[in-house]
């Protein structure tokens, strides 16, 4: 295990209930600053994989180390990891009763104990970055889906995470809004943050990913750089998958 691995999965197994084996012997090393796209058919365990990294799901076997901290039942370890890992969800999960600005300042003020004024200044910088600063005082439900997802990205960035997890960030968006979110993500990718993104946006994968991971039935079936993965898939299952999503 080399020192510049920020995330290490070592024979990680997870079951839902007693018999649904959702992650099988996952071995994965992610280097600091690496940008990874995880894809695979529905139910293949890709969301579960990244949700284990910030312990939204717990694994039952194996070791999972995130930035030097091993995830276990220890609550302090979980808190520690969550401070370093930001996450963006398919359904945005903005807090509908708070304004956009309050969504962004909530955690810095209550967890980071940053004074309100400073938290608001930092939040406005993040909103500028995702080009939505003029909506700061609106409520999330007053925004379009694409705008909401950009706010969600800004909210995660407010914590200055070392790692960003994206769980199908564009799947709930109307087609014309996907680009504005991907543009923000591409810009983030250029700034050296470690990214793991579950997505079916193969254009995004080609543009920014260092590595594409293909999962099926709880296993990592194939991983490769995007060029080779798309042009020369090794396994039958990934060939089949690619033909389905690129075929039309």
């Amino acid at each position: 295990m080399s020192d510049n691995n920020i995330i290490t999965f070592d024979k990680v197994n997870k079951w839902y209930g007693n018999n649904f084996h959702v992650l099988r012997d996952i071995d994965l090393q992610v280097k600091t600053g690496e940008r990874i796209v995880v894809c695979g058919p529905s139910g293949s365990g890709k969301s579960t994989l990244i949700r284990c990294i910030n312990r939204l799901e717990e694994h039952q076997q194996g070791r999972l180390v995130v930035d030097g901290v091993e995830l276990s039942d220890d609550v302090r370890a979980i808190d520690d990891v969550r401070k370093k890992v930001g996450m963006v969800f398919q359904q945005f999960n903005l807090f509908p009763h708070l304004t956009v600005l309050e969504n962004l300042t909530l955690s810095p003020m209550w967890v980071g104990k940053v004074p309100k004024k400073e938290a608001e200044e930092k939040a406005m910088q993040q909103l500028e970055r995702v080009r939505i600063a003029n909506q700061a005082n609106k409520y999330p439900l007053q925004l379009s889906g694409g705008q909401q997802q950009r706010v969600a990205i800004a909210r995660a960035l407010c914590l200055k995470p070392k790692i960003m997890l994206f769980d199908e960030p564009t799947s709930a968006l109307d087609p014309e809004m996907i680009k504005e979110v991907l543009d923000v993500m591409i810009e983030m990718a250029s700034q050296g943050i470690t990214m793991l993104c579950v997505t079916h946006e193969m254009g995004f994968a080609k543009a920014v990913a260092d590595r594409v991971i293909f999962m099926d039935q709880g296993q990592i079936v194939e991983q490769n750089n995007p060029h080779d993965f798309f042009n020369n898939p090794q396994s039958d299952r990934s060939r089949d998958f690619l033909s389905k999503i690129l075929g039309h």
Partner: protein
Amino acid sequence: MTATVFQPIAARSAPVKTEGPVAWIRSNLFGDVRTAFGTVCIVLVLLALVPRLLNWGLVNAVWAKDYDACHAAAGVGACWGVVSEKFRIIIFGRDPFEEQWRPLVAAAALLGLLVVSCMRAFWRPALGLLWAVVLAFFFTVMYGGVLGLGRVETDRWGGLPLTLLLSSLSMTMAFPIALLVALGRRSMLPAIRSVCTVYVELIRGVPLISVLFMASFMFPLLMPQGFSIDVLVRVLAGITLFAAAYMAEVIRGGLQAVPKGQIEAAATLGLSYWQTQRKIVLPQALAMVVPGVMNNFISTFKDTSLVTIVSLYELTGAMSLALNSDSNWRPFKIEGYLFIALIYFVFCFSMSRYSIWIEKQVNKSRLR
């Protein structure tokens, strides 16, 4: 290319009148045959009933405090004189007659406190202090024993002041208990979860009357000799625990309705359990259950009338007390009940209007 010739289309006939009372009646009361039939039936029933009610309540009614006239009008006219004759006992119960300014002042202070607490401008930490001051004032004035005021034992308190005290205190205490119990029923710790579940199921399994009986008669039997808690406090605790169990379930309904993603998002932002509940879950859950909680408040307000059975004469009890003790006026109970029904209605209706305003306040973020 042929030139297009201007061809005016035939003018349409003017629309039937769509505004004003006539149009409203036509579309809403006589829209189709069934509606028209229903309208006619209801109008006939009203025509038969309303004049009789007006004759009884207004035209033939006796307004003077004259029970001979009332007896003469029995059956054809209401006797509102009973209210003016007995209102001091109805409103203040068994509180000593010559010192009834005391419950009056105390009730006015409590009512003022409740009104102030409902106004947004006063929602600040100092409101808690105001509650403490007003409650201390209420108990001092009612109980006496200091400042030259004669002592009035709590079992002589009655009427509207008692109703207001029981309902406002039980509501304000039941709410935080209900919050904790609702959170407890969703706790990950089995011990907390079972304690809360047992509490809710036990309380829901018995009627309020039996809770009051236990608080009033059984509880003292279980206490060591010479140790006693005031009956008012015991009854207050009973109503509070009863209301809290029901309210807890209403609030739990709201908690269940907050999407799991909200809690996950809060977790990824590093919020602790209590921060998540306080900042994310409860604001959304409570906004959803305003109608249900207000339902609880209104029924608690009316349930306080049950304390009569343990010899505390709040509004309803004081009414019976006032009329049962006087054979001259006893036949006019129905007028007395209508009077206190009016008082209850004013309070309950204000509460439901207030709840509509609250709903608008908490749902501002949902407006587009």
